Structures are given as C-alpha cells and as structure tokens.
C-alpha cells in the first residue's frame, strides 16, 4: 500500500557512487560548456527543494502539500536579513534556514497528529494560512515582495555578484545537502523511517517511537527546503509570494513524482526536467498549467515509479 516502493530496488553503492560522480562532474562543467548559469542555479535550488520534499514522502511516506511555506518563508527571512539588517549572505542563508526549521517544528507537531490524506490536507491548509500571513504582514511587502536583495560577499571574500562564483556556491550548497540526504536515508534513522512507512504498527511494536521519527523527518525536510528557499532568495535577489503559493507546493510534488518518489536521484532529474520544460514553454502562458496537470495525470495513471524509478527497475531486471 505504501506510496513509494522503488527504493527497495535501489542499485548497489558502486552504481550510486558512479552516478553521483557523473552528476557532480556534469554540474561543474555545465556553465563552462555554455549552459546558462542562472538557469542552472534555478534548477539546482528546485532540485534541493525536491530532494528535501522527497525525504518526507519517499522515505517517510508522508505527503506534504504545503512545502512551499518553508521555501517561501525561508526566502523572506533570508532576504529581510540580507537587505534590511545588512547581514552577510552566509548569515542570511543560515537565518532563513533556521526560520524554516523553527516552522518545521511547529507545523510538524500539528500535522503528524493525522496521517495519509489528512496529513496532506492539514499541511496544505497551514501553508495557505502562511500565504495569507505573508500577503498581509508588513515585512514581506505584499505583492511587491522583497526586491533587490544584495548578494554581498560570502565570508567577506567571495564576490557573489559574479554569476559564475554564485553558481559554484549554489552547487556546493546543493551537493552538501544532497550528500547529507543520502547519508540520512542510509543511516539507522533512515532505515527506521522506512520501516515506519512500510508498517507503522509493527515498527511501534518493535519499540520505535514512530511519532518522534516522523517529526524529526519532517523537521529535517522543512530545514532543507528552507535552505533551498534562502539560497534562491540570494540568487534571484528576490523573495515573493510566488514561493509561498500552493501552486509551488504542487510543483515540488510534481517534480518528485516525475523523477521518481523514494529514489535518491529522482527529485534532481524531476526538477531539471520541469524547470527546462517551463523555460521552453514560457511563451505559452496558461498552457503551462495545463501541461503540468497533464503530466500529473499521466504519471499517476501510467508512470508511478517516475523516470529514475523506471530506470532502476529496468536495471534490476537486466541484472536478473
């Protein structure tokens, strides 16, 4: 019954290592080979966001329909610290991430009181509450958002106004978070989390405090989503209502679903696919929403393992 079952078919550590190295090399070389760095940074921020989301759904079995609140609020907190308080970028990003973590504690404590479909509805409703808060609170500047956030100098040395420097900083943040998530998933904590996802009563009967594990997973996921949001605010020098809106929560679900829920690389592939798609289709206006919806429907009906999940299954079949 569990929503994501593909992680069982994960290829061995050697394949994972090779894939990670290939991904890193490709990302390091991409701007040199002429890929537009701003596009890459956007895709990396969303990839991190999707990885954070996947930690919760793919390994904890909890579908959050309100993850935009962590992305958006971290963005606002970071942008406010950098612009109004004049904090350096590393402190601003940390502050934004911390704000998302604090929110994760509160929202997590409330949301894990219910499961499954109710969990999804509660997170969605709480995110909508945060959206209305951001719409009215003075420090978010309503429809305008916080604009022209200074990028500043990282640790007082690295000039982030240089796009290429900014790109490699974003890449470093992404890779660190990616490896951190890999580590979480393969730690004893991650194993218990998977056990709870597969059969919660049995995990409880074995003596695991399921609530505590789920809460910790939720906070970790919120924190990492916040890191993505704070980084995004520095990169685009903007924090706006778009990032707290429910459509953003839906988008991260889509990225993860398309790439493959419960796979390590799925969210990254999904994020890059969706961001490229939006890039190429940006002239089509509202049709993008229609296409997004259609991808959702096709994924759910015919393609539930996602791109990476299907590849892993194909690999497993080939290995016999």
């Amino acid at each position, binding site marked *: *019954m*569990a*929503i994501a079952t593909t992680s069982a078919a994960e290829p061995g550590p050697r394949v994972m290592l090779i894939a990670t190295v290939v991904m890193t090399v490709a990302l390091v070389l991409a701007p040199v080979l002429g890929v537009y760095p701003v596009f890459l940074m956007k895709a990396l921020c969303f990839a991190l966001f999707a990885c954070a989301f996947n930690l919760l759904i793919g390994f904890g079995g909890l*579908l959050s*329909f309100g993850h935009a609140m962590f992305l958006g609020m971290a963005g606002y907190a970071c942008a406010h610290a950098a612009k109004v308080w004049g904090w350096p970028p590393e402190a601003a990003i940390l502050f934004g991430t911390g704000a998302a973590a604090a929110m994760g504690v509160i929202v997590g404590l*409330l949301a894990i*009181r*219910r499961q*499954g*479909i*109710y969990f*999804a*509805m*509660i997170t*969605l*409703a*709480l995110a*909508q*509450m945060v959206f*209305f*808060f951001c*719409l*009215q609170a003075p420090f978010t500047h309503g429809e305008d958002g916080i604009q022209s956030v200074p990028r500043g100098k990282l640790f007082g040395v690295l000039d982030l106004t240089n796009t290429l420097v900014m790109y490699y900083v974003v890449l470093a943040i992404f890779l660190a978070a990616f490896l951190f998530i890999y580590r979480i998933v393969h730690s004893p904590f991650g194993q218990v989390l998977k056990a709870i996802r597969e059969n919660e009563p049995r995990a409880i009967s074995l003596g695991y405090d399921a609530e505590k594990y789920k809460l910790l997973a939720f906070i970790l996921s919120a924190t990492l989503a916040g890191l993505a949001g704070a980084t995004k605010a520095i990169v685009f020098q903007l924090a706006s209502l778009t990032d707290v809106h*429910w459509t953003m929560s*839906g988008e991260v*679900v889509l990225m993860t*679903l398309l790439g493959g829920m419960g796979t390590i690389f799925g969210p990254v592939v999904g994020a890059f696919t969706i961001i490229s798609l939006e890039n190429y289709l940006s002239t089509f*206006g*509202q*049709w*993008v*929403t*229609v296409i*997004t*919806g*259609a*991808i*959702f*429907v096709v*994924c*759910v*009906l015919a393609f*539930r393992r996602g791109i990476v999940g299907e590849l892993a299954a194909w690999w497993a079949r080939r290995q016999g």
Partner: protein
Amino acid sequence: MEIFGVPTQALFGQLLIGLINGAFYAMLSLGLAVIFGLLNVINFTHGAQYMMGAFCAWFLLEKWGVGYWWALLLAPLTIGLTGVIIERTMLSRLYKLDHLYGLLLTFGLALIFQGVFTNFYGSSGLPYRLPEEFAGAFNLGFMFLPKYRAWVIVASVLICVSTWFVIERTKLGSYLRAATENPALVQAFGINVPRMITLTYGFGVALAAFAGVMAAPIYQVNPQMGANLIIVVFAVVVIGGMGSIMGAILTGFGLGIVEGLTKVFYPEASNTVIFVVMVLVLLVKPAGLFGKEK
C-alpha cells in the same frame, strides 16, 4: 443600535455574508465527504468542478439563452456526467493503490481544468445576470436581506438536508453506508458496488456544480473561483472530520458564521480564522469534531 461597540447593521450584514459563505462550505464539504466515504479519495478537482458548474450556467445563459432555473438542473447533470467519465476512465484504476494517488490525480485534473478555462476566459470575472424574480430585498426591520441571498441559504439547507436524509434514512442510503463499511460483503449480496461508486462520485461532483450555479450571480464567474475556496473547504473537512454527513453540514455553516464574525471584530484575521480553528481542533481533538479515529 450597537452590540459590543459594533453597529447592528454591520454585524448582521457580516453574519449574513458568513452564512452565505457557510452555505457554500457546507455544500462543498458535503460533496467531499460523500465521495470520500465510498471512494476513499479526496477530490481535489472539487473546486474546479464548482467553477465549471458556474461556467456551465454562464454558457447556457449567454450562448443559448437558457435561464437560471434550467441551469440549476442542467449544469449539475452535465458536470456530474463528466465526473462519471473521470471515475470510469481514471479514478477506478487507482482503488487498489495508496489513497494519496487519488489526491494527486485529482490535483492534476484540477490544474488542467483551471488552466484551460483561464486560457480562454482570462482571470477576470464574467458577470452572471441575477434572475428577474430575485431583484430586490426583504426588509427585516433591523436589516435588508437581498432576495437572492435568502434563496441561497434556503436552497443549500434543503439540498444538504435531503442529501442527509437519502444517505441516513433510506434503503439506497443504507446500501451506500454498508458499502462504505465493507464493499466486498455488500457486493456478495448482489449489489453492483462499482456502479454505486461511479454514481456516488457523479453525485458528489454534481453537488459541487450545483454550488457553482448558486454562486454565479453572487460572485463573478471566474476560472480561479474554486482554487482558493477548495483549500478552505479542506480545512473545514479536517475540522469536522469525515465521519458524518451531518457533521460536514454543521461545520460548514458554523465556520462560515465564525468567519463572518471575525470580519466584524478583527478583519485582519478573517482570511486565516478557519485555519486557526483547524489548528485548535487538531490540538484538542485530532480526529475532528464529528470524526471517529480509525
């Protein structure tokens, strides 16, 4: 005259608006509860189907000159039929999987419908003419009650109570409740459960479309009209709990009134008050006011 320092005119005015909103919350959460009871699917498309109901009424009037009363019958039938098609071709493939897939599928469908309508009609609203017979208002002495608003409240109470009656007090309803408890057993008694599921989804969708037609003359007909509403209705459903039909109705009306009163006493919080109530209910009674912990 004043109550708690608020002019009664304003107080009753906001109470009325609250009651109207409550009527829509009740009708929509009722549809969600009926669908969830049998299908175990949270119908994310509900908001889009409410919007399509309103558009259907607008089409009937503008293109073919078919008036409000016929729209009240034809729009739910048409949109309900599309619901039946959705259930047969898509939702029915997902029953054996985790319920969350149903949520994801209907979310995708909602995006498609809203996107298509926004594409053709933009995001500004289209006006729907108020039927002649509803022009004017009743003078209640302490306030004026526009006739159409009175009708909305009466009609939604009628629809809600008759739905409750059919489900809780008739033979057909008893089949439905039995199938909710144990579909396999009911099927063994020779009742066509898959057809019942299809019709239930169709009925829930028709209810959303009916609410949409009712909303058309009050709010403008707008492709996004259901998008934000459905999230509030989700909160209503969490507060009420899915366990009972009457619970969904009472919570809907109750929260509409709470929202209306908030507009009087603390307008800044009127958008968020329902979510705050949801948080409080989750803390005190996680299963919802009328819900049963499964």
